[in-house]
């Protein structure tokens, strides 16, 4: 599937639409910029629900990418896996949920950020 970004068209005037056709991006490239390191995770929990990530959604995740402040990451904290906001304050890292029901996680022993979420997919209809 291809998404085309077309030029501006003014009603009533002859429009050379083809010439105005700007470069188009494939939906694949748009959602999966680095295919060789991209994985899909089926979301089960609701800890990121206020960030618009619902149970049943598909998270598009890049492995081996360096996390930045406020990225949504897939991390292994003290032995268990979680998806949270990655927040840096000085040298300490906090993993912040997007749901009031859950507490902020401050890693005690070990934190491994295994992936960075780059997109979330929700297919509505087959």
């Amino acid at each position, binding site marked *: 599937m291809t998404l085309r970004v077309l030029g501006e068209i003014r009603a009533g005037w002859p429009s050379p639409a083809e010439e105005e056709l700007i470069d188009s991006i494939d939906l694949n490239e748009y959602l*999966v910029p680095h295919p*060789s390191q991209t*994985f*899909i995770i089926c979301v*089960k*929990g609701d800890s990121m629900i206020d960030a618009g990530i619902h149970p049943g959604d598909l998270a598009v995740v890049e*492995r*081996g990418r360096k996390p930045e402040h406020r990225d949504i990451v897939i991390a292994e904290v003290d032995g268990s*896996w979680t998806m949270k906001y990655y927040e840096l304050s000085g040298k300490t890292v906090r993993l912040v949920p997007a749901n009031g029901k859950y507490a902020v996680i401050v890693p005690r022993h070990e934190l491994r950020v295994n992936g960075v979420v780059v997109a979330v997919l929700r*297919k509505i209809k087959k």
Partner: protein
Amino acid sequence: MQPIPLTLHSYPKAILHADCDAFFASVEQALDPQLRGRPVITGKERGIAAAMSYEAKRCGVTRGMRLFEIKRICPDAVILPSDYETYSLYSKRFYEIVRRFTPDAEEYSIDEVFADISGLRRLHHGSYEEIAFKIKKTVEAELGITVSIGLSLTKSLAKIASKQNKPSGFTCIPGYELHNYLKGVATDKVCGFGPNTVNLLAKRGVRTVLDYVRQPEHFAKKLLGKIGVELWHELRGEAVYPIILIQKSNQYTLGKTKTFTPPSNDREFVRAQLLRNMESAFIKLRRHKLRAKTIAIYLTESDYRTRGLHAELSRGSASTTEVSVTVSGLFDHVFQAGKCYRRTGIVLSELEADIEIQHDLFEDPCKVKGLREISKVIDQVNELYGKHTLHLGSTVCLKSFSQHLGDRGDVTSRKMDTLKGENFRQHLNIPIWKVDV
């Protein structure tokens, strides 16, 4: 006295061999964190261990071991059906990562790559060792599996190097170190020296690779012929074998075979199994725009005895519909009532490009054209709705059969837990990471 080096150069050519560790099992562990650190074995559908994780190897599990024996010596082993779809996706990504560093990469097997990184030091701002290490680290970070890397002057030497310190090995042998290194490597570590060659060399007092390359060239030639000489040069650091960039396109044979459990003595069921293999083979044949002139079939009984027959067609064909009559005829000659069969297979050979049709004297050109049209429709429908959606009437009895009944019939989680919009056969070409979040 100091031994004489074989060469004084470091890397006149820099060839690396990258070999993924316990590939299939590692992929399973990378995608399912619950499997990490546990003995994992793939090959459930075949009843034997196809690949095993290092944890399983430590328990004494070896390749080809029967599953019941594995359960005995390693009771907490996780035994999984092979998920070739995901392994292939991983394999492609592995090649792609190596290609990011150099265009000269050879896809040697599903989990091995040879690459020439000569002349790339300035581009990658580092020594050859540093580039090789970066490749290793990139594969490990992005794919979550470990890889063993060997770096040296030729393919044969790189392959010896990658085998050292597996898993996650990293061994670099520059030219001026060859003589020190090779005196510790037995001849059976050389790819190309089988047990017979190793014994033959031992009779002449040649036990290590250094012994071998210290012999004069005519020793290699007299004892082992052309390949002996080629390896003699390779192992001295003089590249003979090139990096092969393009996979051979002219396939000479194309085969499909499938085992089913339990074995069956039902004539029409076994026939359907064979015809399904034929359908798959012809789909592949047409995808490569080829046609076949010779068709061989075989049936394997439950005691592994195998019998077959072959037929030569009056002209090459790529039509499932046309050839099914011939295959069915061959089947009736081979099938024996009362016997139990466990496997069927088909091999197509004398393949040629499927371009102009050459009609033979007695056939109706319209009919042949019609058959081509039918093939086209079959392929288009299956492209749209999944492989084998449109199939021969004789294979209809396979529809609900899952190839293996019982334990071995377990299918991969990728096939069971499909995403919305996927079906049993067609899946998103991105691996699913089974993380609980």
